[in-house]
């Protein structure tokens, strides 16, 4: 059975809302245990074993990142960034017959307000989703920032 784009959009909106409203633990629960959360540096298509990334987290690293944000001592997030995410251009590929795994591409417009400064990012996002359980899970989230090769201001929030 094919995946309806409107269902995918609902899922992406939910993921965005969890981040925008700092529900980081619920956000983490969306990911499978073997998940990858990846923001390449320099350009979109790099080999992350040979080239540095901005973020290249397994689930344990994601959990550590969230624990830090919750510690009360993450000074770069005091006060926390306010973030709005707008999602569009959603394209769904798969799943293939007999598979629960499918790919989603979308564009994201991410606006952060912090330190009296509004920073605008756009990114082409790639998700690998698994629908084998009743709640869809994210196996891979890759965020290809338009400015991934440029000098970035401090980016302490979850992208």
């Amino acid at each position, binding site marked *: 059975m094919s995946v309806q784009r409107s269902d995918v959009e609902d899922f992406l909106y939910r993921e965005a809302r969890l981040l925008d409203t700092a529900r980081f633990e619920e956000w983490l629960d969306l990911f499978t245990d073997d998940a990858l959360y990846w923001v390449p*540096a320099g350009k979109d298509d790099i080999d992350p074993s040979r080239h540095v*990334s901005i973020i290249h987290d397994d689930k344990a690293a994601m959990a550590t990142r969230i624990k830090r944000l919750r510690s009360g001592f993450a000074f770069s997030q005091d006060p926390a960034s306010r973030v709005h995410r707008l999602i569009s251009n959603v394209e769904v590929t798969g799943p293939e017959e007999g598979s629960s795994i499918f790919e989603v591409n979308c564009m994201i417009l991410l606006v952060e307000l912090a330190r009296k400064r509004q920073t605008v990012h756009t990114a082409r996002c790639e998700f690998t989703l698994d629908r084998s359980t009743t709640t869809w899970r994210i196996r891979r989230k890759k965020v290809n920032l338009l400015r991934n090769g440029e000098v970035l201001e401090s980016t302490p929030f979850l992208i």
Partner: protein
Amino acid sequence: MQDVGSLIRNDSVHRSIYTDQHIFDMEMDLIFNKTWVFLAHACEIAEEGDYKTTYIGRHPIIVTRLADGTVTALINRCRHRGPIVCQHEYGNSKHFRCPYHSWTYDNSGNLIGVPMPQGYGKSFDRTQLGLTRVPRVAEYQGFIFGCMTEFGPTLQEHLGGITKFLDAYVAVSPTGKIDLFEGTQKCGYNGNWKYQLENGVDPYHVGALHLSAVTPEAMEIYRQGRGSVVAMDGHGVTDHTDWGPMPVDASLSGGFNLVIFPNLIVLRSQIRTVRPIAVDRTEIYTNAVRLQNVAEDVNLRRMRDQEFEFGAAGTFFTDDLEIFERTQEGLQSGAVDWVVFARGLDREEMRNGYMTGSMSDETQHRGMYQNWKRMMTGVTSPALAAE
């Protein structure tokens, strides 16, 4: 304008060194135009014709490897009307052509092509119109530096005691040579460049600012205060080698941090290049260091840890960038002019020829600011100052 030398006291520095645009202009002239400035690591321009673009102060620079294997550095500015002649970060080319009027230079800087040269008349001498060469380029353990003055201390003299730390840094690699991973972490902050130099050798802040990021094991070591800080020939060293040698896995468990004045920081699995843009604007370029002939998972761990802690989204570095911006804001106030660097003044001592303090002291900062003062008042090196 008060005498610039009076801005540095032994226990404090005047806030204007961080906030005064005129001081910044002087720094570009009296520091970045005079001393050795880090340009590239040899592995970034490994092959003949490879180049990297970077900066010495305000000068855009091309560093390139020539056919004979030597490295040259050229001011990236067409001698005709002035555009940069190379706009890529890295590449390989035997020549650089300015697209504006097609003036063309070979990669050692010679002007080899000018369209319609007859229009310039007899006095036109293309041998005088090559890309300006950085007068001196030298390399130590793969670290390539350029110097805008023809005379003065050699690179080795400039590095002084730092050479033995660079020797130890590359010796962690089984071949004695290090490489860099591909790609660069690029971050910027609205603050003065010297905050980053202070912060690169500042164990005192780790247990405070980085409370949310540092592991309990490393925190325990910091709280014990083992190790020392050293004012070394104008550069700064925090020496943790009595916790252990520079670890192959680059964990926060031993080794040392180096701040090589004025623009290079070497620590754990990274080299950081500091680029001053304006009195209140700085860019930081960080590269992850790869060892030769170690297991691939060891190298991967080095890079993953460096990304997690020190990239634009790093768990350590975002708090550093934050505090640099808060400092710039706070120092706008002239209610108090002096910024305190007095820790350890009563307990530091000469050891092996260098003023040495305990782990959380500010001896290394005092040394860097004495070096800053010497340069800004016209004495170009600690060696010369001592004579």
